[in-house]
């Protein structure tokens, strides 16, 4: 069994354990989550299971999108958050909320994520090196952030403002099985597109020209990955709001054990992203704070330093080269 397959198996086991743990732990500790009394059934089936599954699926979607974008853009700092896809997805959803079309928020998130992905790809394709691409993403993220702030500024009433703020902080609290279905659909669609492009991502290890010369169809690879990453980031953001850094951290952790082949990182990165977010969400539920810490805030608090660490390591490596 290859390193990637062994790691995937281990991550599946960790994911299952994390999901079970999430059912046991919470403000009310359950001795047996499979018990058939009404209270347990309500807590497990209507609160904890949908929440834990949503966290896993959102993490998996973000991990997969991150691994795919890193392969496409040949940049270990790429992910849907850094490149502005999540920010634009959030902007789309905020616009839908602000105009009273909450039911259209997922579609708006997807369309806006797609737009951002197209922009990043067009602007970033010919750039060299990680820094310039991340700068493009930072620019897009800032633009999205500014427009979201404008949406918040112009919110019609304090209730709407509170809803929007909560949503942009990123959380899977109170999610239902409908949300699970919604993010599953986006994840499956995105994963299918991305996995079709896996060989193209392998070829891009050689750079664009050599990849084309060995027979890779770069246009096809680009379109599939951009659409797939937008579906994953759009779906995840539509359901959970903005949750950053999972897309960077998951592939980075996986590389240590599964090697650097971008195609073989895809599945383990999705599994790692899912497991990470379930563990993180269980942790925020258990933290003894008066107001529950939002998952997106926790991800940023942990992920920010990881991002800085990866960037510093890359910078020192390119300084050596």
């Amino acid at each position, binding site marked *: 069994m290859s390193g990637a397959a062994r790691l995937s198996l281990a991550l599946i086991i960790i994911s299952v354990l994390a999901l079970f743990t999430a059912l046991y732990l919470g403000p009310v500790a359950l001795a047996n989550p499979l018990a058939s009394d009404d209270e347990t059934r309500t807590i497990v089936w209507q609160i904890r299971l949908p929440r834990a599954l949503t966290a896993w699926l959102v993490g998996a979607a973000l991990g997969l999108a991150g691994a795919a974008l890193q392969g496409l853009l040949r940049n270990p700092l790429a992910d849907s958050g850094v490149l502005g896809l999540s920010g634009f997805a959030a902007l789309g959803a905020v616009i839908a909320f602000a105009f009273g079309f909450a039911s259209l928020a997922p579609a708006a998130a997807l369309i806006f994520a797609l737009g951002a992905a197209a922009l990043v790809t067009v602007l970033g394709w010919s750039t060299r090196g990680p820094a310039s691409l991340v700068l493009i993403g930072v620019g897009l993220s800032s633009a999205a952030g500014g427009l979201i702030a404008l949406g918040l500024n112009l919110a019609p009433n304090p209730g709407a403002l509170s809803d929007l703020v909560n949503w942009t902080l990123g959380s899977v609290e109170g999610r239902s099985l409908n949300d699970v279905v919604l993010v599953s659909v986006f994840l499956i669609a995105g994963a299918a597109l991305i996995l079709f492009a896996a060989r193209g991502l392998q070829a891009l290890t050689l*750079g664009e*020209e050599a990849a084309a*010369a*060995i027979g890779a169809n770069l246009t096809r690879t680009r379109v599939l990955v951009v659409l797939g990453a937008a579906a994953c980031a759009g779906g995840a953001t539509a359901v959970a709001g903005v949750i950053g850094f999972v897309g960077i951290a998951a592939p980075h952790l996986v590389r240590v054990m599964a090697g650097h*082949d971008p195609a073989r990182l895809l599945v383990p990165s999705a599994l790692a992203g899912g497991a990470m977010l379930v563990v993180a969400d269980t942790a925020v539920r258990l933290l003894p704070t008066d107001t529950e810490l939002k998952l997106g805030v926790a991800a940023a608090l942990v992920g920010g330093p990881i991002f800085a660490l990866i960037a510093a390591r890359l910078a020192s490596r390119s300084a050596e080269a």
Partner: protein
Amino acid sequence: MSALLSLTELSVALAGRAAVSGVSLTVTRGEVIALLGANGAGKTTLMRAGLGLIVPRSGMVRLGGGDPHLLNPRDRALRAAYLPQRPQSIWPISVEHLVALGRYAYGAAPERLSGADQAAVDTAIQACSLEKLRSRRMDEISGGEKARAHLARAIAQHAPLLMLDEPTAGLDPAQALAVADIIRTHAPGGAVVFSTHDVALAARTADRLLLLREGRVVAEGAPSVALTPETLEATYGRSARIDRIGDALTVTFS
């Protein structure tokens, strides 16, 4: 016999500047052709246009009889393998994995190679003396070893035409000669077009030379015909002396 590559009155512009002007070249099976010229003379542009990686302003390109722009990427890869001037391995994959990417056009995934694909990879690794390095990561080997790994990747592609852009750049004399031998070994079944700044190595290795200056052909022909002090001066803008010792040739610029 149909040409593996044929360029007719090819002109290419890069960023509005003429990079190649009115160059014609036919490459047939069994030939080794070296492109010589100063930096910016159009050697790389000529290769990229031949492979269909850039669109010419005018003229005709035929790769294995077909227009490279109309061929799908796989068909193109089955007709010509390309080693860029600065080959990249963006992720630190293993040497064997890198060489296996040469089998992409055959549908091979580097981690699951068929018998034929594995045999092609093994042969290329052996030809480039990489047996001891096959499981090493690309960021753990020397510049010369990296160059050989990328060359092995191009060889594993089993395309009749090999286009190598400065394959000996940065190599020590022994390694450069080894690459020249690999080039000669490929020629009987196919053809090789390579660019270099090592005039003596080009004369030793190639059947035919194409000397370029500012995108135009200065001289073309067998080394003994194409290389004269006059053509070298016209190519590089410096006066040159050519000394022949047996089959070997040395060029001294002053």
